[in-house]
């Protein structure tokens, strides 16, 4: 029942915003979204300990949460809460600057809530086809948010996003349907557990073909190289809070889709096949992203390539297995928080400088002291420097790979060093230097500051002292991925 309520909250809020609230009540629309996301986050805080103690929430309407799904729900609702808070402040600043009209705020939050609904449904459902429908719905709900500013470049980015993701998702539908055709039972598969239970009887070659379709399909949504081409354009053109949400949370939802099928594949043919693919895609993603980050000229694109790099790191962790799986799951949380905070601080920079080109941005430290300090802190954290959590997860992932893939671990370590120097070069150039003449120092409004400060506090807390409940849910989720039966 709680799971149903969790999923229903954003849908109900979308209906409220779309049908009941007048477009001019901008403030009320914004606070409705904040209320809905905080309610969902509170529900997640209630559900996660229950899942830790009981194992899963009871099934209702094809909805049930096991440890992995509950962990994803926690990430989605936590980042979703901060994204809604930041969106209110960001859109308020854009309305004040005349970039958008007040009527667009309703459109934004309507699609925002539908996006949240689709992501929560995708991770909460027990049925593979419902998960596919929900992930497809994430594409449909966000397409208009990417073209939000009605500029030709934004429309082009949104079209690219729509076509490439739809192509990828149709391939994942094909993979899903092949998986559902494999069991030799007449009643039909209705949930993940039934699929996993019959995995041992599947034909190995059929499983491999189906998993490749799944990996290519959902991998497009994750943004693994070479399926990543939509990502930099999309993140550069979407409204910054939405880009933050796409980069930090959607990536995890799509990865979740692959992981569900990975457990079935592993149960059927062993871990070698899926792990090999994960390691291959992960390594290519990290290396290519590292090279492009180094020569990047646009900070939103730089963050997008950072997302591709971290998708690769997570894929590598799941590919290495063992402690790597645990670290990759934890990396999902840390990355989601840090990447969202980086995008939000980048949003504050964009509000002030009205450009995403790094060459035109200098003196941010003097213009936006708070945002720039947190942007720099976010860079330290995302680059994997101690004492932040990402340092620990990267270390664990690489150490997991040292035994079985020493060469890969070495190459990745080198690529991560390139990422650090690339980031350092760009970030220091933005923070220091003279203030441009037409820029007036000072942050925008409180709601563009509060979320990033709170997120920074949470990042520090979970880096130094991971709460027992989170540790337990990650351990349980990792166990479900490595020993599904």
């Amino acid at each position: 029942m709680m799971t149903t309520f969790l999923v229903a909250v954003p849908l109900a809020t979308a209906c409220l915003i779309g049908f009941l609230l007048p477009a001019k009540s901008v403030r009320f629309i914004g606070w409705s979204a904040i209320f809905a996301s905080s309610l969902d986050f509170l529900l997640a805080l209630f559900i996660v300990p229950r899942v830790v103690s009981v194992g899963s929430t009871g099934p209702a309407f094809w909805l049930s949460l096991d440890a992995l799904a509950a962990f994803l729900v926690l990430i989605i609702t936590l980042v979703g809460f901060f994204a809604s808070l930041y969106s209110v402040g960001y859109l308020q600043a854009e309305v004040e600057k005349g970039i958008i009209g007040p009527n667009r705020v309703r459109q934004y939050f309507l699609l925002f809530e539908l996006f949240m609904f689709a992501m929560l449904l995708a991770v909460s459902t027990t049925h593979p086809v419902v998960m596919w429908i929900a992930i497809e719905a994430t594409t449909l709900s966000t397409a208009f948010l990417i073209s939000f500013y009605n500029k030709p470049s934004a429309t082009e980015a949104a079209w690219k996003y729509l076509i490439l993701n739809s192509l990828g998702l149709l391939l994942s539908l094909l993979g899903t349907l092949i998986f559902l055709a494999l069991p030799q039972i007449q009643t039909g598969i209705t949930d993940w557990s039934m699929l996993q239970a019959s995995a041992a009887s599947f034909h190995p070659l059929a499983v491999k073909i189906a998993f490749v379709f799944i990996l290519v399909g959902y991998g497009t949504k994750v943004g693994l190289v070479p399926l990543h081409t939509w990502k930099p354009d999309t993140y550069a053109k979407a409204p910054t809070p939405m880009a933050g949400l796409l980069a930090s949370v959607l990536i995890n939802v799509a990865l979740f889709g692959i992981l569900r099928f990975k457990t079935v594949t592993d149960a059927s043919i062993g871990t070698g096949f899926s792990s090999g693919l994960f390691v291959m895609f992960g390594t290519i993603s990290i290396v290519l992203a590292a090279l492009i980050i180094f020569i990047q000229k646009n900070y939103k694109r730089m963050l997008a390539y950072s997302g591709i790099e971290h998708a690769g790191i997570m894929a590598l962790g799941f590919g290495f297995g063992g402690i790597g799986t645990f670290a990759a799951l934890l990396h999902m949380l840390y990355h989601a928080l840090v990447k969202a905070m980086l995008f939000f601080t980048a949003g504050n920079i964009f509000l002030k400088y009205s450009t995403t080109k790094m060459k035109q941005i200098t003196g941010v430290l003097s213009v936006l002291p708070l945002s720039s300090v947190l942007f720099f802190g976010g860079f330290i954290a995302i680059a994997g420097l101690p004492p932040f959590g990402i340092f620990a997860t990267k270390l664990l992932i690489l150490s997991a790979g040292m035994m079985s893939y020493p060469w890969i671990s070495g190459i990745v370590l080198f690529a991560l060093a390139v990422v650090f120097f690339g980031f350092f070069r760009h970030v220091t150039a933005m923070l220091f230097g003279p203030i441009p003449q037409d820029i007036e120092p000072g942050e925008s409004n409180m709601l563009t500051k509060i979320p990033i400060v709170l997120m920074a506090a949470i990042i520090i807390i979970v880096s130094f002292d991971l709460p027992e409940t989170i540790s337990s849910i990650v351990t349980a989720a990792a166990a479900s991925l490595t020993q599904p039966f």
Partner: protein
Amino acid sequence: MSEYVLNALLFVDMAAFLAVLFMHLIKKDSHLIWLYALQSMATGLFLLGTGIAEEERSLIMVAALTIIIKAIAAPIFFFRLMDRFGSHGSSSSYLSTPVTLAALMALVMFAYSSVFQILGMLLPGTVGSFPLSLAAIFMAIFLMINRRGVFSQMIGILALENSIVLLTACIGIKQPIALEVGIISDIALWIVIANAFISMIYRQFGSLSTSDLKQLTEE
């Protein structure tokens, strides 16, 4: 599956395969839409025939939805869009026709290769239909890659979806009616959104050719 249904499936798969093949050979957007309508109608009629033969009401309902949404409403929607912009354009290919045909032949050979044989055996009697559906899938993906028009990209996605529906029939998948309706609703919504984007692209770029979408590369 009865022999009647298996024969019907083979016939429809051939029709769907030929529709995608001709999509590669013709240039006009309006012809593309007609071929898509034909492919959708064949898919819908197959589902209808199967539903009647196997006395499955849910399948008949899915068939009706497929015919209404994909074979009738969507093409009307596309033609209206073309009329609104006075555009009866054509889209060229990146590869020349002989090279395109050679690539298509390679894709068909790949679909018939031993790699996929195991999937064709999942449902006895569909060994002939399965590679045709798979070839149609590969060719639909290639259509999106090889053509310059946004219409071609959209029709490529929809032809791919039709081919997946037929392949699903070949491997014997039956979903609960709620899920079938969910998938069709997703596709219907996708068509509406894609059309909205095509309108926006035409307004902002004055063309429906992907060659003119250069805003991102020029930044």
